[in-house]
């Protein structure tokens, strides 16, 4: 689509063309992975009473897989706007770290491009861009192409999911399990050492315990802050022993 037009224009700017090609080559598995996830999100949106236009508008403005899934389930259960916005903020606050670590690699880059890139930072685009930055130079144009290709895949598949939602019965194709499967995979991607595994176990166990005694979703925030703090303390405590 729009890439074809940019490809033609790129004849005069070879570096731009290679940015596009390289960006797309790096991100295509994420674009494909977003299709079942986006369709699932669209279907759940339809079940919560949203129109395809509303789902597409939400994906365009928010671009946050897990945040949108949670928001849609909260809409379905009749939560207040303030509660949904606050939960979205907490759930997406983790992107603060991703943005911070990317900032190190893009020092002195034009601030317009920095802002454009920052809109497209989610778990998957961050992981792909960081992986490229580990391998060698990965200029901001490539990072923008990669992030926005994933973004468009997300907007299109969520909207299509909502269109097809009315024809799909409850839990067809196991769609209700899409979020769980995504979280399982993303959790595994995050396990970069024993301290991460320990933190995950603390977070999971304390979240289960808190979820049984606290109503609502507060257990997510409390367990996360508790586990990350405990993780740092355990890391510091183990360091003098020299076996971290």
């Amino acid at each position: 689509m729009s890439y074809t037009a940019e490809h033609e224009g790129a004849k005069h700017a070879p570096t731009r063309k290679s940015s596009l090609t390289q960006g797309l080559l790096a991100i295509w598995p994420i674009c494909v992975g977003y299709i079942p996830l986006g369709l699932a999100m669209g279907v759940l949106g339809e079940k919560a009473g949203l129109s395809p236009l509303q789902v597409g508008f939400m994906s365009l403005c928010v671009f946050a897989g897990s945040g949108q899934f949670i928001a849609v389930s909260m809409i379905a259960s009749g939560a207040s706007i303030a509660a949904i916005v606050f939960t979205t903020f907490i759930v997406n606050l983790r992107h603060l770290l991703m943005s911070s670590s990317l900032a190190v690699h893009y020092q002195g880059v034009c601030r317009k491009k920095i802002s454009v890139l920052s809109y497209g930072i989610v778990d998957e685009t961050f992981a792909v861009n960081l992986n490229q930055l580990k391998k060698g130079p990965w200029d901001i144009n490539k990072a923008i192409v990669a992030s926005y290709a994933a973004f468009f895949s997300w907007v299109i598949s969520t909207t299509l999911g909502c269109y097809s939602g009315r024809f799909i019965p409850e839990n067809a194709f196991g769609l209700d399990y899409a979020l769980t499967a995504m979280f399982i995979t993303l959790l595994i991607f995050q396990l970069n050492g024993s301290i991460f595994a320990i933190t995950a176990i603390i977070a999971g166990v304390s979240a289960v315990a808190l979820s049984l005694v606290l109503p609502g979703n507060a257990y997510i925030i409390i367990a996360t802050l508790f586990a990350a703090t405990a993780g740092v303390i355990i890391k510091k405590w183990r360091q003098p022993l020299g076996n971290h």
Partner: protein
Amino acid sequence: METTSFIILVLGMGLVSFIPRWVPLFFLSKRELPPLLIEWLELIPVAILSALLLPALVTTGTPRVFNPLSIEMLIAIPTFVFAWFTKSLGGTLVVGMLLYWGAGYVI
């Protein structure tokens, strides 16, 4: 949900999603964060994912009840093994969904 409140909701969600992505890249490109804060922030993603995932697997109903042998948990085990060895997001989604779908027919 009526259109006006939906637009307010989505714009609010968009704003609170964009600010944490934009502020560090825009302002921190030259400043270093305190190392302890970085170490703490590094553990946030794994903690939040685990805190979202595990209660969804082993609790059911409202108010929630502990149910460690739920169908969600039983399907999570092969899904976890598949994700562990393939490291594939799309593949794990499809496998997890198919197993869960199939389990619905068996049980």
